[in-house]
């Protein structure tokens, strides 16, 4: 009887793709500006804290500029389509960087920061429901659509309470090793709606290492010019 009930509940649940699509927009909207504080924690070392101003337009364009500390102010990352660029004010040069290189010396890769849509890169399957971090969640398995996607498989937990807030993501290599895991929490009201405000990434490469992104302000439905997302604008600091 309980099995039958579970099957019925699962049948009533939204399909996997719909869950992932809703979760894709849970933290940042379609077109958004935001302020975020990144804290890089390394065992035995002082935390490194950087604040950034970010811009996102659709699933193809993203820009992040460092605002503090003063010595790093002006450093910026740009993602446009499949390309990522880094601007270093000290060198006054825009250089192309790989999506898999780490972002700002932390545990997120450039691709993690600018992963604008999971549904674009992965085929999701709903595995069932499972409690995660004290929340009832859909447990989904995401399989990369092709070998150019960084993580071959992602396990993804999304709240079942109708908010579709992602709670946790685990990223696996082709051979099945868990490489990184992301926790999303501290739901709070930013930009007029509730959303997870803290994302914490840990990885298997360094025990005790962790990078936290804490959103301080978010404005959805911002009006952003396409010219903002070009390497020349990056260099000009526009």
């Amino acid at each position, binding site marked *: 009887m309980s099995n039958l009930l579970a099957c019925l509940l699962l049948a009533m649940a939204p399909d996997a793709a719909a869950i992932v699509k809703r979760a894709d927009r849970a933290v940042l909207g379609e077109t958004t500006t935001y302020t975020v504080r990144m804290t890089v924690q390394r065992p035995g070392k002082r935390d490194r804290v950087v604040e950034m101003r970010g811009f996102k337009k659709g699933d193809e364009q993203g820009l992040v500029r460092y605002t503090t500390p003063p010595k790093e102010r002006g450093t910026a990352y740009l993602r446009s389509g499949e390309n990522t660029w880094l601007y270093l004010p000290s060198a006054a040069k825009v250089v192309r960087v790989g999506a*898999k290189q780490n972002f700002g010396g932390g545990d997120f890769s450039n691709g993690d920061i600018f992963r604008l849509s999971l549904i674009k890169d992965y085929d999701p399957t709903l595995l069932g429901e499972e409690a995660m971090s004290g929340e009832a969640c859909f447990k989904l398995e995401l399989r990369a659509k092709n*070998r*150019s996607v960084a*993580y071959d498989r992602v396990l993804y937990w999304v709240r079942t309470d109708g908010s579709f807030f992602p709670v946790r993501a685990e990223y696996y*290599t*082709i*051979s099945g090793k868990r490489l990184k895991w992301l926790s999303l929490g501290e739901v709070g009201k930013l930009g007029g709606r509730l959303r997870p405000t803290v994302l914490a990434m840990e990885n298997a*490469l360094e*025990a005790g290492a962790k990078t936290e992104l804490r959103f301080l302000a978010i404005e959805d439905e911002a009006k952003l010019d396409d010219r903002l997302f070009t390497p020349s604008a990056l260099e000009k600091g526009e």
Partner: protein
Amino acid sequence: MPTLTSMAVRNLLRARRRSLLSGGTMALGTAALVLGNGLADGIARQLTANLVAVQTGHLQVVARPGDFEPQNSPFDAYSPLRLPGAQALARRLEALPGVVRTAALLYGRGTAMAGGRSSMASIIGIEPEREPELRAAHHLQAGTFLSATGRAGGEPEVFLASPLAQKLRVGVGDAVSFVVQTPEGAVNSLDGVVVGVFQKGAPWYDHALYLSLGPAQDLFAWPGDATSIKITIEGGGQAAARQARPSIQALVRQTPLPGLDPDQRVLVETFPEAGRFAFSIMEANRGALLVLSSFLLAAAAVGIVNSMLMSVHERTREIGTIRALGMRRSAVVRLFVLEGLVLGTAAAGLGILAGGAAVLHYAAYGIPMNNTSLTWMAGGDRLFTVLTGASLARTAATIVALSILAAVYPAWVASRLEPREALHHV
């Protein structure tokens, strides 16, 4: 002529102290040159042997970008680009006449991790049973080299550099994992077990590790492929490599390589072409030796000229006497040139004995290369000098020729002395 020679020897023996001083200078210069050549030859031998054994073979087949520019890096010989069907192509190349052995090699970069520690690593997949020279070129510090299967109890075997083992704090029997970004873009990982730790000395191998080709292909998701094919040919050497290249090139061109990027080209490179970095070090060493030798020889030549001019001055009356007795100007020139020749030959002989002994000593025991710059230059943490007959003959000929040349001016001065004036010289 025999009379002139005995006169020359006698004259040199009469001024023993001066002959000893100028001859000693020449002998020291000769010894320094022999030692310098031994060092340069030792560096060249070590760098070349290392390059051929570890990276390129005598020839290598490799995919390069259309606009490839060597960066003068020790890793220039390796290419990160995929050579499709490399293993199958390697076996076909092995059937060519003159080819002793071929081995496919897969080079890539990634992260090695163990116990919460991680480090960047150069990951090199090899066919262990086909790499006896590579095996011999790595000084085993602990454990063993990779087995023919490359697996220990199902786990991929890992043979890694001592500095990397220290950084990860692993030893023989410990687990180590790798994370790489595959060329297509996905992230992959592999768990292995350390079977051996090597000491290479050359700092560019501090973060290198070897896996068997199969696990490396799994890691980079390139089944059957590699990044280069090392070819060992009969006789070795640059000339043999150049001679063997056309037939290898022809077979490579005939072989379809499906999946090769159209912007890339497949090249057959001889080891000097592939290992430009090592050869640029050798050229720099030869250049430095040439400059040093020039100064050394110039100083020695000035010493001889000075010594012989003094001899002319001291023997003015004697020259006047032999000229008055009928000796021609040309005979006087020959006499002094013969003195230079005898002095140079004796000095060259002594210098070769002393320098050769030093070279043989360091050839047996090596010279420790105590800092990173020296290990870069020598391609290892010990430099073993080399004594070759050609080098000795070259040095001896240079010294003797220099001695003769240095004697020409004093001889000419002596020959210009008028007997009447010379006899009145006090």
